[in-house]
């Protein structure tokens, strides 16, 4: 797996708030190969966005990456000087945010916001940069890009704005794109189109993609591998087929059972009982045990990540056995 576009090892990102330390990302490892899509799943507050910002080097204070390595093409991003890291951002790694209504600056024209991203990394003139901006807009399916370039964001619909954000991410042909729930705020048809386009772009250009979502059904149709996060930790990791067909962690099992699907028509949908624990000063032991039907005394200890099969990992003392879902 030496050809991974990005490899994250034992990453830990903590927020040092006035009320205590929030361990938003704790000991997370994974890797993505070029042209592959990794789905990062987890419920709200499980640390997915913080994970993405940690890779970008954009964790807001009072947060800080406190340990681990982030290897991009063999370089540890955590060891780069600020200026070197700036050259990586938007150039080798690009990120797309959740809310398209908020990501574009309302007082700057689209062409400004696109050309500046080109010219921050390449010594090209304004015309060449505009050229690239127009191509990128065309690639994400925006009609008459020339006119659109001179518009302001508020003249675009939500779906169009997200396409613009994706086009900006594509501008410099990055090695990796982190997409943080980019379609959650959009309606289902637009969501479908964008998913399809992104998948195509990743395959064609060999860009690795980390797709963050709380929606397992989106990931199911899109990703090659799945990483399930719970309370800041990876609790399960494997290929899409493995994880969806044979979930090992009780939390993953619960997630799958709560997705409406054709296979289990007629069966009642199940909800995972309880709520996400607060990450503030989390007590030791499995973070899921308050909600887990399989919990017992052993679960008061921290479960370690184990690897029951090749390419599979799970963090649980009593993993589900084949066929059983929660």
């Amino acid at each position, binding site marked *: 797996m030496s050809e991974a576009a990005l490899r994250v090892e034992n990453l830990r990102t903590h927020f040092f708030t006035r009320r205590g330390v929030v361990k938003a990302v704790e000991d997370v490892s994974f890797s993505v190969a070029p042209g592959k899509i990794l789905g990062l799943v987890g419920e709200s507050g499980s640390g997915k966005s913080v994970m993405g910002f940690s890779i970008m080097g954009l964790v807001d204070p009072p947060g800080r990456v406190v340990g681990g390595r982030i290897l991009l093409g063999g370089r540890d991003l955590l060891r780069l000087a600020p200026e070197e890291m700036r050259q*990586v951002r938007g150039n080798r790694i690009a990120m797309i945010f959740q809310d398209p209504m908020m990501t574009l600056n309302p007082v700057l024209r689209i062409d400004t916001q696109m050309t500046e991203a080109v010219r921050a990394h390449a010594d090209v003139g304004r015309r060449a940069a505009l050229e690239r901006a127009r191509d990128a807009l065309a690639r994400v399916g925006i009609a008459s890009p020339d006119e659109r370039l001179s518009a302001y964001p508020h003249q675009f619909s939500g779906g169009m704005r997200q396409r613009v954000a994706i086009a900006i991410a594509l501008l410099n042909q990055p090695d990796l794109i982190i997409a943080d729930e980019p379609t959650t705020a959009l309606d289902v048809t637009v969501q479908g189109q964008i998913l399809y386009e992104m998948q195509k772009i990743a395959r064609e250009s060999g860009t690795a993609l980390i797709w963050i979502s709380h929606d397992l059904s989106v990931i199911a149709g899109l990703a090659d591998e799945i990483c399930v996060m719970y309370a800041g930790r990876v609790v399960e990791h494997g290929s899409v087929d493995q994880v969806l067909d044979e979930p090992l962690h009780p939390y993953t099992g619960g997630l799958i059972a709560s997705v409406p699907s054709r296979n289990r028509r007629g069966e009642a949908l199940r909800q995972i009982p309880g709520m996400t624990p607060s990450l503030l000063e989390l007590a030791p032991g499995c973070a899921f045990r308050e909600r887990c039907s399989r919990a017992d005394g052993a679960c008061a200890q921290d479960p370690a990540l184990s690897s029951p099969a090749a390419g599979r990992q799970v963090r649980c003392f009593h993993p589900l056995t084949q066929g059983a879902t929660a």
Partner: protein
Amino acid sequence: MAAFVIRRLLQSVLVLWLMSLLVFVGVYAIGNPVDILINPQADQADIARAIAALGLDQPLWQQYLTFLRQALLGDLGKSFAYNIPALQLILERMPATLELALAAAAVAVLLGIPLGLWAGLAPDSWAGKLIMSGSILGFSLPTFWVGLLLIMLFAVELGWLPSGGRGPTSLLLGIPVSFLSWEGIRHLILPATNLALFKLSLIIRLTQAGTREALLQDYVKFARAKGLSNARVVGVHVLKNILIPIVTVIGLEFGSVIAFAIVTESIFGWPGMGKLIIDSINVLDRPVIVAYLLIVVSLFILINLAVDIVYSLLDPRVRLGGATD
């Protein structure tokens, strides 16, 4: 848009009319107009002639109409002290006041925006805290007292700058201005700083709050995610967003800068309208007082009106006719 402008115009006319009524009542009904409008040194025959000329033997409402008509024609009486028409006197002093006010606005903007940005970018640093506490002081200290301190320090103790007066002026498009010569600038520095102080504090606070707000926005984080330099993120993405409210406030506050020039001009002996009105009050040069009040209030109404209209033009939602989605 047109309806808005018309409504604001009507309102301005109403305020102006109210003002004329107030001045009229103050001068003719409460005070004795003979005292107020006729030079106390005049002899009996002069007084009789003036009374007839001013129509002071007429009923009050007719006097008001006369007053209004003369005011509209620009005849606001002659200054006792200078013996020239009050209106002309005030118009002669106006450029000095405008220059001072513009210089003060420039100081407030050129210092206030960078300081506010700094305080907004590093709110917990000692510099940020110092800037913000300084701006609180700037709000609460009376202008005249700060002016005295400035004179005491820079003119009396250090002797770096003159303590008052306007210094030499040169003509720019026929208007006398100070800022074209070094000596003139030296005279301008202290009064402009003094007058700027209050607005400077205001701009610092606006900029600081705006910066902190903008830094939390997704679009700033997205700009960083594009790999833009810090200078570009702050100088373009943050600044451009906070500039619109700041420009509006500067416009709105310009009238108040002119009003507060009264204080600064008196301290620094700056020969503008403000010093003129205080001198006139002190020597009871009443035609000048009446003329000043009417002119300044008109000026004020005009500025407010202009700012309102310009702002409604600048507001992108009004200008661009809303979103297309």
